[in-house]
């Protein structure tokens, strides 16, 4: 099945990337990239408004393939989430570390993530997975060669085998070896989602690479979508329970490791690892509530962690390397940056009045019946993640009266963050905007379980 809306947005971003790469300077490229993201958001919004109500959830046959015109619930909001991630990755990207080609790579990665949302067959997903690997590895390698870094190596060492597993899994599914296919895909997803013990690349990449590029690669979480699209119905079995247990373990250990980091980037990296672990745990749930909680957590994590990490990037551009050993900032000098950092961080760890609270509530409530003991790991992990965020906030934005001359958020940064904070707060007050899919579990729209809105199966 193909979905029209995300593919349209992907085309806009993909085309713009070509022109952004050719800009003579980074500032101009960032302006063009921001415009492209705005245009894509506009196109998506207009198309959604036009299609809303009239063809909601319906499908047409085009050249023998099912084409969905407008998604429902999380399917509808996911492309917007990806574009908001792009707005942050581009809008808050420091020009010193994000040249035109890096910005173009960011747009291409987001375009591929959007295209991912437009597909549901393993073959198409595998092709997009491969393309994302090529774009990310290529840009990281180019940056390493240009600046003498070594960000590409950890990424390639972990992700190349994952790509191999995707190819193997896809071939196995095509030729009817379902258990081999499922296992290979799940392992690839575990590597991509940085589930322990396949997580090593993520904190390392965050510590070494330009943060805009990392966010474009990590925040849309294609592995989560692949999980939903390929294994939407795979719950309750031993494999699913194993995956859930590993996810919960990742959630708790990632959160605990985040608390002891001395580097703001790595602390953010472990926060992401912990949250992807919790999402993986939720996706393996049999309960609709738990799975919807996982899907919401996925979207919250994409938005909140993108904003959180890009705020670190913006602060780093002003202050230099951000150590967590000694407090060295002043809230009074950069109040809006501090507020954005705190709100985004806490949105991802279930602050009331934000969408994160709803996501965690659903995740915990939904999982406790099936996993009465492991379910409490989610609560523990969230508590530890909250401590991680607060510690980073206090260390980065307090402790000194000295004014180092750093400026608060610029107008472009304020607007990019306002969009994301607005979405998170609006979602917290009116969660039904994001839970509009209703009781149907994620994945049913892909697989068309009985009772799903489309009632169409692809098998």
């Amino acid at each position, binding site marked *: 099945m193909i979905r029209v809306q995300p593919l349209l947005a992907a085309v806009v971003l993909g085309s713009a990337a070509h022109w952004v790469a050719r800009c003579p300077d980074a500032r101009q490229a960032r302006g063009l990239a921001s415009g492209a993201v705005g245009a894509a958001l506009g196109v998506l919004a207009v198309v959604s408004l036009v299609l809303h109500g009239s063809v909601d959830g319906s499908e047409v046959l085009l050249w023998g393939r099912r084409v969905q015109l407008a998604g429902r619930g999380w399917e509808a909001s996911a492309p917007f989430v990806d574009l908001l991630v792009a707005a942050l990755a581009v809008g808050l990207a420091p020009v010193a570390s994000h040249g035109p080609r890096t910005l173009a790579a960011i747009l291409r990665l987001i375009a591929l993530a959007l295209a991912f949302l437009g597909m549901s067959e393993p073959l198409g997903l595998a092709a997009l997975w491969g393309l994302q690997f090529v774009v990310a590895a290529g840009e990281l390698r180019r940056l390493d060669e240009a600046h003498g870094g*070594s960000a590409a190596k950890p990424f390639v060492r972990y992700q190349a085998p994952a790509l191999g597993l995707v190819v193997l899994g896809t071939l196995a599914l095509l030729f009817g070896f379902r258990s081999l296919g499922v296992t290979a895909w799940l392992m690839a997803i575990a590597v991509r989602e940085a589930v322990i013990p396949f997580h090593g690349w993520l904190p*390392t990449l965050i510590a070494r690479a330009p943060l805009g590029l990392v966010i474009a690669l990590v925040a849309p979480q294609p592995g989560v979508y692949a999980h939903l699209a390929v294994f939407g119905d795979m719950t309750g079995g031993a494999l699913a329970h194993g995956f859930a247990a590993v996810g919960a373990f990742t959630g708790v250990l990632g959160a605990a490791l985040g608390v002891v980091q001395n580097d703001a980037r790595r602390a953010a990296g472990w926060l992401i690892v912990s949250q992807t672990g919790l999402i993986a745990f939720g996706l393996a749930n049999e309960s609709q509530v738990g799975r919807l909680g996982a899907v919401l957590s996925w979207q919250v994590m994409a938005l909140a962690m993108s904003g959180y990490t890009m705020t670190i990037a913006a602060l780093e551009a002003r202050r230099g390397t951000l150590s967590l050993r000694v407090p060295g900032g*002043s809230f*009074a000098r950069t109040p809006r940056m501090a507020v954005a950092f705190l709100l985004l961080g806490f949105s991802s760890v279930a602050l009331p009045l934000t969408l994160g609270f709803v996501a965690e509530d659903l995740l915990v*409530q939904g999982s406790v019946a099936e996993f009465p003991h492991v*379910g409490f790991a989610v609560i523990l992990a969230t*508590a530890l993640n909250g*401590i991680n965020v607060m510690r980073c906030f206090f260390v980065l934005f*307090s402790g000194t009266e000295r004014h180092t001359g750093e400026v608060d958020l610029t107008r472009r940064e304020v607007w990019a963050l306002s969009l994301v904070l607005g979405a998170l707060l609006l979602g917290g007050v009116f969660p039904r905007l994001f839970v509009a899919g209703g009781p149907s579990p994620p994945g049913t729209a892909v697989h068309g379980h009985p009772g799903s809105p489309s009632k169409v199966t692809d098998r």
Partner: protein
Amino acid sequence: MGWLEFVLTCVVALPLVACLLLAVPAWFGVRFGERVISAMVGVAFGGAAAAALAALAGMLGSGRDSLEVTLGRWVVVGDYTFEWRLLADHLSVPFALFAAVLVGLIGVFSRRYLHRERGFFRFYLLLALFGAGVEIVVLAGALDQVFFGWELVGLTSALLIAFFHERAKPVEHGLRAFITYRVCDVGLLSAIVWLHHRVGSSRFVPDGGPWAGLVAPSDTASVVAVGLLLLWASMGKSAQVPLGGWLPRAMEGPTPSSAIFYGSISVHLGPYLLLRASPILQGSPGVAWAVVGVGALTAAHGSFVGRVQTDIKSLLAYASMTQVGLILVEIGFGLHYVPLIHICGHATIRSLEILRSPSLLHDHHHLEQAVGRQVPRTPFHIERLVPNAFRPWMYRHALERGYFDSLLRLVVHGFMRVMRGVDRIDRWWTGKVVGEPMRIDAGEEQRR
């Protein structure tokens, strides 16, 4: 929605509106003057107090013991529903009225106290958010909603302790308070989840007692588990032994916030939660005795350690801890109205004392002038009961704050050491996979 339901909704809505009116313009760079800021908060909480009073009068006039307002369904997924429901009864309305009046008064008081303070706006925004959180906690119709407000109270408390953020100590103490809250909130959230799992709901329902309470699970193990989890949650918020070390340190914040948080409202939310959980305590004598034990130990500890404090704010913090401990003992013994009256009385006196604490020397001079000689020292009646041989040991024990801080430090440092070890192993393993060693300090990775 009738007028009674409307005014009850206003008690929660007005503080939230004040937060919005302060926060949204500030985010876009619009700043109001001190007069406008304090007026907004004052009006919001004055309105909330008036609404709470009207609700109380309406309930008394109509002869109703309780009033429930359903604001709507927030999340509906399958069998799971999160419904916003406000509950006014003999417990929540006095608490809501009392909280609104005190926050409003603190708002008015702080206008002069924090005049030209750089964090004036921040203080009022956090105060309004705190007030909104408290009103949500006390008027919540279910434990899920309590958690909603509970978290807001914890966050604002930590941020206000670290109000003077240029100095290292307030920030350190703010973080300590936040960690304590967060660790104890695990208890509250776990209790909610367990209640949903076992009972199907965490709503407060009338059970024949003086006010609505939680529905106790049918099996004893669950009753004990939920009871202990709620006690754990209360211990953090109300600074009970052995977790109470954050309370004297919390006095680093501005005096008005210390008064409202640690003298009057925030520390009493733990007892409030336990009062709502009285059916659980009644269902398990073991849990009730645990509440009595924690309360009694805290009261003894607070009274004991408070005697050797040399600054007024620490002394008041330990006095607060002692009284809250006694309130817990009353709750554990199954009393209802006595702890409620105790809470209101203690909160009023203590917040007044904390507000007056910066003028202690001034007040002392006044008192000496009035009596015409030095004020006589307080006689050591209780101290005389302690045998001489034990006095040095007990003095040392009190100076070390019962060694509870050392104990906690041991636990936290142990955890940190273990996690640092795991981190080192993780870096070693990743280095092996990648084929190069991983660095530990910030920037070393970026410079690679």
